[in-house]
């Protein structure tokens, strides 16, 4: 006849009791959302200058750098009547296939105008494959407050450089 | 302008001895155009070339190439031949050809006519810079006069020889003083230098053998043919025969043209003839060949160097067209190189990369250096850019643009201390 040993069950109970008072590791998503680290690479944004013009010049270097072949860019020429970006050309088509994207950030590195940046947004579930294609309309940031959106009509001769002169933020 | 005499008489600036020699009658009374007649009627072209070679006459445009030898290079299997007179005289500090052509025109004309006969040319083009339009106008009248006197035209002196002279005005580009750019300009195409070789005596104006000589060079020819090679050799040094018109300018008391035998020292030119430095200041440097020359530090040794084709190179410069610009202690070398580069940047033809981009770059740098905004790194960069241009340009003028810059930084380093 063996003597009943309560130790194992107490040990187990201890874990249970401890867990009851411990802070939970899970998040109550979607009510609660995790704050991402600063360097987190989420979905892309196409940025604008302070004046609201688009930074993207449609050079397709992001597409060239993309190891997953997820980006498709097609460029067109700006005119003073219909202007998207300060330079000579802009991306008339900009698409990222989020299903292909591996969030490596090479596109960001390749971008000569800092137009494409990986943000913190990670909520990209879709129920249709077609919706995995993010177009320029989705990717583009809204213009800064008080600034008109693109395309816009501008004074002739103001934007006469092929690539706007870039100055890093002070 | 200051006047002086060489061993009793001038060869090129004869109007200083015979004031009215600019008149046709006065010139002919001196035996003018007798030589031309003698040449056309009695002499063989080969003999003339040999005589000019024997005289030791060297090109006065800057390169100092033996004139007779250049003439001998003319391709006799390809006709016609042309003689082109380079009267572009655009080098800053050079003003000798202007005086010869305007004051002693008949001797100049007779010289080029004899030369044309020697190389078998029936047409002479005098290429003058655009600013010389008055001289061109005078020359046109004088050429008309020669036609009227039957010294130009068909069947001269009863022989089969025909000769015509045309003046051609440039549009004021420095590069058109370069002989191949000059030929392009006459042909009506853009004044940019051609590839050499082939050299003009083989392929020149309109693709034909052409001799391009400086005004001063050819102005000697008639007298050499009249008085002989030995007479000409009695002036100057063994390797630099004859006299040369030195255009003296800069910080001297009496700037002007001085015709002196080659081999005269800088000291003689500056102090004996030029009257010394303005305000009796101290001489600092010498630009021996206008803006395109290296700047020489004017030590005693330098001042005693004879001005001759063979001796100036030892000073790290060239005799060139003998446009001597004197710099004294008041001259800031930073200002000087900025001035010269302004000029070369303005005058670069743009054909070859190092000159087009290099002069543009140097102009930016020297402007900053002259204004005192530049650091030591800029001076170093400027020197490096100048050095990078050397040996890479299509024609000599690209090289020239770096001379003053590189030599000033090397030889007057204290001026560039920040």
């Amino acid at each position, binding site marked *: 006849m063996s003597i009943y040993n309560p130790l194992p069950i107490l040990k187990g109970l201890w874990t249970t009791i401890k867990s009851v008072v411990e802070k939970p590791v899970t998040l109550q998503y979607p009510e609660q959302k995790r704050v991402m680290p600063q360097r987190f690479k989420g979905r892309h944004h196409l940025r604008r200058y302070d004046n609201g013009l688009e930074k993207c010049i449609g050079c397709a270097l992001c597409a060239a750098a993309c190891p997953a072949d997820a980006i498709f860019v097609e460029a067109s020429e700006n005119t003073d009547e219909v202007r998207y970006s300060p330079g000579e050309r802009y991306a008339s088509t900009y698409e990222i296939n989020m299903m292909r994207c591996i969030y490596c950030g090479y596109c960001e590195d390749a971008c000569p105008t800092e137009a494409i940046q990986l943000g913190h947004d990670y909520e990209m579930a879709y129920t249709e494959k077609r919706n995995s294609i993010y177009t320029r309309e989705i990717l583009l940031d809204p213009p800064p407050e008080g600034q008109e959106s693109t395309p816009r009509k501008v004074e002739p001769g103001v934007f006469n450089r092929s690539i706007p002169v870039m100055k890093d933020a002070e | 302008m200051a006047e002086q005499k060489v061993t009793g008489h001038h060869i090129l600036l004869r109007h200083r001895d015979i004031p009215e020699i600019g008149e046709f009658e006065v010139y002919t009374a001196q035996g003018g155009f007798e030589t031309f007649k003698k040449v056309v009627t009695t002499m063989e072209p080969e003999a003339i070339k040999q005589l000019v070679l024997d005289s030791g006459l060297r090109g006065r445009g800057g390169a100092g190439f033996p004139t007779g030898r250049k003439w001998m290079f003319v391709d006799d299997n390809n006709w016609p031949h042309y003689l082109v007179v380079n009267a572009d005289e655009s080098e800053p500090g050079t003003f000798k050809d202007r005086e010869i052509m305007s004051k002693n025109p008949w001797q100049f004309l007779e010289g080029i006519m004899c030369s044309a006969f020697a190389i078998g040319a029936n047409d002479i083009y005098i290429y003058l810079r655009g600013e010389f339009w008055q001289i061109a106008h005078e020359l046109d009248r004088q050429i008309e006069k020669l036609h009227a006197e039957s010294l130009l035209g068909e069947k001269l002196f009863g022989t089969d020889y025909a000769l015509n002279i045309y003046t051609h005005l440039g549009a004021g580009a420095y590069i058109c003083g370069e002989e191949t750019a000059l030929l392009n300009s006459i042909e009506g195409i853009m004044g940019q230098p051609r590839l050499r070789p082939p050299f003009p005596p083989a392929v020149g104006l309109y693709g034909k053998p052409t001799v391009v000589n400086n005004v001063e060079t050819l102005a000697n020819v008639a007298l050499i043919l009249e008085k002989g090679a030995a007479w000409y050799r009695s002036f100057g040094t063994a390797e630099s025969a004859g006299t040369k018109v030195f255009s003296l300018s800069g910080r001297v008391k009496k700037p002007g043209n001085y015709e002196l035998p080659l081999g005269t020292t800088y000291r003689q030119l500056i102090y004996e003839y030029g009257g010394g430095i303005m305000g009796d200041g101290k001489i600092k440097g010498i630009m021996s060949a206008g803006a395109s020359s290296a700047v020489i530090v004017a030590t005693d040794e330098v001042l005693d160097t004879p001005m001759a084709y063979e001796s100036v190179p030892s000073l790290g410069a060239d005799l060139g067209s003998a446009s001597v610009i004197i710099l004294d202690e008041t001259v800031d070398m930073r200002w000087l190189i900025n001035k010269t580069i302004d000029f070369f940047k303005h005058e670069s033809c743009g054909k070859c990369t190092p000159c087009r*981009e290099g002069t543009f770059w140097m102009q930016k740098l020297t402007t900053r250096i002259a204004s005192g905004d530049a650091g030591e790194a800029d001076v170093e960069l400027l020197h490096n850019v100048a050095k990078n241009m050397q040996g890479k340009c299509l024609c000599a003028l690209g090289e020239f643009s770096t001379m003053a810059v590189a030599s000033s930084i090397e030889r007057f380093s204290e001026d560039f201390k920040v």
Partner: protein
Amino acid sequence: MAEQVKENTVTLTIDGVEVAVPQGTLVVDAAKIAGQDIPVFCYHPKMEPVGMCRMCLVDIGYPVKDRNTGEAVLNEDGTPKIQFGRTLVTGCTQVVSEGMVVVGYSEKVQQARKDVLEFFLTSHPLDCPICDKGGECPLQNLTLAYGPGESRFNYDEKKKNLKHVPLGDLIFLDRERCIHCARCTRFQEEIVDDPVIGFYNRGRSLEITTWSEPGFDSYWSGNTTDICPVGALTTADFRFGARPWEMLEVASICRECPVGCNLTLNTRREAKSGGKMVVKRVMPRQNEQVNELWICDKGRFGYHYASADDRLTTPLIRKEGEFIPASWDEALSLAAEKMQAAGSRLVSVAGGQLSNEDYFHIGQLTEHLGGKAVLYSNMMGGDLTTKVGMGPGSNLADLGAGDAILVVASDLEEEAPLYWLRVKQAAERGATLIVANPRATKTDRYAAHIIRYEYGQEAAAILALSLDRIGDSDLADESFKQAAKAFAEAENAVVFFGSEGTGMAQSDALSKACANLLIATGHTGRPNNGLVGVWDKGNVQGGWDMGLQPSATLFDDLKAAKAAYVVGADLAGDNPAYKQALAQAEFVVVQELHHTATMELADVVLPAQSFMEREGTLTSGERRVQRYYPAVPPAGESKADFAITAEIAAMAGKELESVSAGLVFLGIVGKFKDYADLDYQALAEVSEQWPIIGREDLYYGGTGYANHQGLGVLLGTAAGRGEPVLIDGFDLPDTGVDGLLAVPVTRLYDQGNNLRYAAVMFPRIASSYVSLNPADAAGLGESVVVELNGFQVEVALKLDENVPQGIVVVPRSFGLPISAPTPVVVKN
């Protein structure tokens, strides 16, 4: 022979590699042969060197020779002593010499390259990301290979220049990117003799500008964008179209004229076209025997018709006057039924731009049904070129001193630009060029003999050139005699005959006269001798070779036809008379790419594939068979012409190959002697060409493509096989006309169906006009009414001193109904 080779070659060492090259070779070319890199910007192997860019600076050493003995001086180890120059030398201007040592890898040379690139980059903008040249840019590539890591130039001091300068309607200039290499200006002057662009100003302000009005008025302007070593010159057509690395390359052949220029089609998927694969640009593909590295602007920019929005995508059947989309089965069986029923009253009309395979099948089907197959062309003589054409081994580039070229009845640059270029170059090499034409053309500039005859007398003029007849002709003056002598005495002689002022009757007589002249002077059956048709359409020669012929009675044939089968020909659009005839035909089947005036008259419309969507072969005027490849997927349900014909044939009881063009070609090979022994593999064969160009050598030859897909094969001729060639007797056409005579001429940029879709070219295409001698234009205004063949058309009037009096020059395909010399009335 071996001795001779040795005498004419020079052995030199380039960076340690010993290479033997022909005497007179330039150092940069020798380096290319040796596989060594000497970078260049301004040098181009097709042009004279200028030594401007200074990029090719190298160190060159020569073996030292003893002054007294002339013997080479040796080093202690027995190697020849080499003396190097004080300064570096431009390799592009230096000719090789025996024992020369070229050093490119030394520190001195590498430093020089770095310096020169640094100079370039002080002014060049950093806009590679948006530059059309980015990715295939010599400056970019050479900077990566040889340039400094960073510039010491102060960025803020960069010179700003105009970046958007339309030089003309087709070419844009970016003055900031220009590196002043003068390749474009030299190309226009040296190669195509259209010096319409040039330098202006000097120094850093030097800039390219255009002298012509309209700007950059040249048929060759697109080539300057290929040889531009930076992105300074870009085409309006491709501007920002795609990045070079994103595009695929497919080999093709141009069919705008009979030259058969080799093309590379660059394709990419395009969002603007709904994700379709489209051709983004047309580039030249090297074929030194055809187009070298060049193509004309029509070939480069005129391709848009093949991908136009109004392409036919499904078969259509006319029901109660309306076109109703139908299935292939339905449409084909209807067509087959009607065509079969027509029997001998079937008329098949094949356009001039179809492939050999298409012609072959049309011929087979029509023969099977007992109908008449007609090649839609206004030129005759395609049978003569098979007899006395240029045979295998010919290359216009071989013609030079001692040879003669006769160009008759042709404004060659307008009719076939590359032929003009090749003839011009032959004349520059010393070939005697004889130009016989009623009015002055650009070809005259290179002519040793110019013969002017009256319109309609072209055949008589050529007959008069035969030495044995020269005495009989009242045309023959001294210029004829000299030209005749030069032609007869030439070692090799080629005749190009075109269609200036000729209709079918004149063309028939002219071609026979030309063949006669060649036979009489013994210029047949040998390479570089023979007859070349400057055909009015791209593959007319192929049509003739496949047994089709033009018909002088086409109008009546169509009127009486029970069924007309029109393939790739816009009869109604070209000539209102044909429109009337077709309207009278009982049943019309039209096989087309898009909506045309002819299609409007059809009962059944069958959508065909464009040349970009299928493969096939073309035969050029020189009778070079060349192969082209599919580049983009077919539009809608369209099928290749030969496949459609084969399917009709199948329904009409004749089995023809309907899938593989290659198999159809084997049928051709089996049937036609000239094509024997050929197959698609043979057509795809390539051999090494000079200059070496290609993707790694962008800086050298430009961005044109190397040829990996076939140089084509020149067909044999009857004369070449030793068969007897006799020319039938022929009548000289009657030329007598009271009053004005309208004559058709060809303009390169016409208003035809091909250019109708090339929007970029619209500004370059003239509006409808006729030309008159000023003496005939008294009382006429700027706009006139022309009465021609019973039709009245209002057009602009151009006065031209070159037009003979009594003649009205009417350009073809400009909306005026003309196919032969015709009496005409011109009034206000």
